[in-house]
């Protein structure tokens, strides 16, 4: 099987947040500071006091927050190997210990002017533990709500990924060559089987980019069978991407869109331009196709695109970018996502 065991960030909802994902980190920072601000507001009697209390609090919160995040970043792989509740308990434990250590070494720096110093140390440990629980709960809820979206997406996915229009037309095209060229008909049916197998697999598992490309070529071969010379393709693939992992069925549905909305309505057809390259730590995928100048956008278009957008958001949060440019007579999709190598999860 070309599929590779899923990497940690792709298992929902029973998984810790990916502490190396920019989006997850950002969410944690925002939540912690938001709650700190809220606490400051509750305690204060004036705006000036809110600011003062927030700054006082920050002096202790930020070091704890940042060192916890660093620690979790480093231990991400180990944590992710644990069962969910063990992982969650470890995260809470780590946060509490970090708090205690910082309080211990920070010493007088954080000691309040009045009151019992050791009370403050334990109070802070309790509060940061509670904060960790809250944030883990938040991530779990978020993953759960997104996973229903995922189920919905999967339900409509078959339709979005393999259009009935394509299915029946392809079967028809295969039928048309059965008598004249049984060999070609056989290989066309094999291509179709591969496409459908792929469409029915678990979309949460990352696959080899090279496999995605092979599948897309099979798809285009099928479309060429019925569209003939009207369909031309041009591939530009960066060889450094050979070992890259990508979410499955990202490329093929985009090509299907390009064929259905771009090439088919054009009598003379046209070229689909596919570019895959690496820039910095990101994979870039660009698909450009001509389209009919007077055509309005169809709903099917949006459905397939929505599905891909949703899956990218689930997988990469803010680390993936997705842009569409709809010109007078061309259509251009650009996807940017983190470059992830096969086997190891050293993506950053």
């Amino acid at each position, binding site marked *: 099987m070309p599929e590779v065991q899923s990497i940690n960030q792709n298992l929902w909802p029973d998984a810790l947040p990916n502490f190396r994902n920019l989006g997850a980190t950002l969410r944690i920072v925002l939540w912690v500071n938001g709650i700190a601000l809220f606490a400051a507001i509750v305690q204060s009697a004036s705006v000036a006091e809110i600011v003062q209390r927030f700054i006082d609090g920050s002096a202790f919160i930020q070091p704890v927050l940042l060192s916890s995040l660093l620690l979790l970043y480093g231990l991400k792989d180990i944590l992710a190997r644990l069962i969910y509740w063990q992982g969650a308990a470890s995260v809470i434990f780590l946060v509490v210990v970090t708090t205690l250590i910082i309080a211990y070494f920070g010493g007088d720096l954080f000691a309040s002017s009045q009151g019992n110093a050791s009370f403050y140390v334990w109070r802070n440990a309790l509060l940061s533990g509670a904060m960790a629980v809250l944030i883990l709960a938040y991530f779990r809820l978020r993953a759960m709500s997104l996973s229903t979206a995922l189920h919905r997406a999967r339900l409509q996915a078959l339709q979005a990924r393999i259009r009935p229009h394509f299915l*029946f037309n392809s079967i*028809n095209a295969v*039928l048309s060559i059965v008598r004249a060229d049984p060999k070609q008909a056989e290989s066309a049916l094999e291509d179709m089987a591969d496409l459908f197998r792929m469409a029915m697999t678990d979309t949460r598992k990352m696959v080899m980019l090279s496999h995605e490309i092979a599948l897309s070529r099979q798809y285009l071969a099928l479309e060429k069978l*019925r569209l003939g010379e009207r369909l031309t393709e041009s591939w530009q693939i960066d060889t450094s991407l050979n070992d890259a992992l990508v979410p499955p069925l990202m490329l093929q549905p985009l090509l299907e869109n390009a064929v259905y909305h771009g090439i088919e309505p054009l009598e003379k057809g046209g070229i689909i331009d596919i570019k895959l390259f690496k820039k910095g730590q990101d994979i870039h995928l660009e698909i450009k196709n001509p389209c009919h100048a007077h055509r309005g956008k169809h709903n099917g278009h949006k459905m397939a695109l929505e599905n891909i957008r949703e899956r990218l958001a689930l997988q990469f949060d803010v680390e993936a970018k997705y842009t569409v440019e709809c010109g007078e007579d061309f259509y251009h999709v650009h996807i940017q996502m983190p470059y992830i190598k096969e086997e190891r999860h050293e993506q950053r």
Partner: protein
Amino acid sequence: MNSVNLPLAVYIVDDESPARHRIKELLSDCQLQLPLELIGEASNGIDALEQLSTLNADVVLVDIRMPQMDGIELAQHLNKLEKPPVIIFTTAFDNYAIQAFEQHAVDYLLKPIRLGRLFEALTRARAAVPIRSEILQELTPEARKNLSIQERGKIILIPIEKILYLRAELKYITVRTEEREYLAEEPLGSLEKEFAARFIRIHRNCLVAKDEIESFEKTGDDGAETHWTVKLKGLDEKLPISRRQQYIVKEFKKY
């Protein structure tokens, strides 16, 4: 029909050549039991119209989804022929069209086409009458891209975006483009509905293309009897706006 003993003349229109090839194979399978003759094929509606004005087809198998001109529009133009053929639509998948076909009891074949279904449809076609134009129009949510008129046995297509105005005159409709005038036979009301995106009614008997309006002018200085006229781009003629439709002057001035 008086040609019961002649073979059924069949014509195929489909943009995909394997699809045409498949139908040809099936037709030759049918030939064993049903006298028929394939008289031609085309990959688009324009070529089909051209050829079918001289060929006399009994049945035309028309794919619905085609570039340039979809199958339903082609059928509407074919209806203008002196002896309109019976149309059998073919489609791989088209929810909207299929629902509409069922509703209006219009014959269609799903691709991949079964030999039995094709045979039945062709057998029925001998006795069938062409689908009425009003029904064809209801089969699609999309407006035609051309109007068609018959002139000396030929079908002439007038692209909608070339039409400046449509004016009802007694039995006919004058279709005005920058170059010339044509006479068409279609009710103005249904044209107004179908092409609402392009035309606006300025008078009980006249629709003008919104994008072609150059200016509005007031004519007739004798007090209460002044009225507005429309001047269209590329035409000297000024078309009167009826009192009831005068609000459009104000609406356009906003832009």
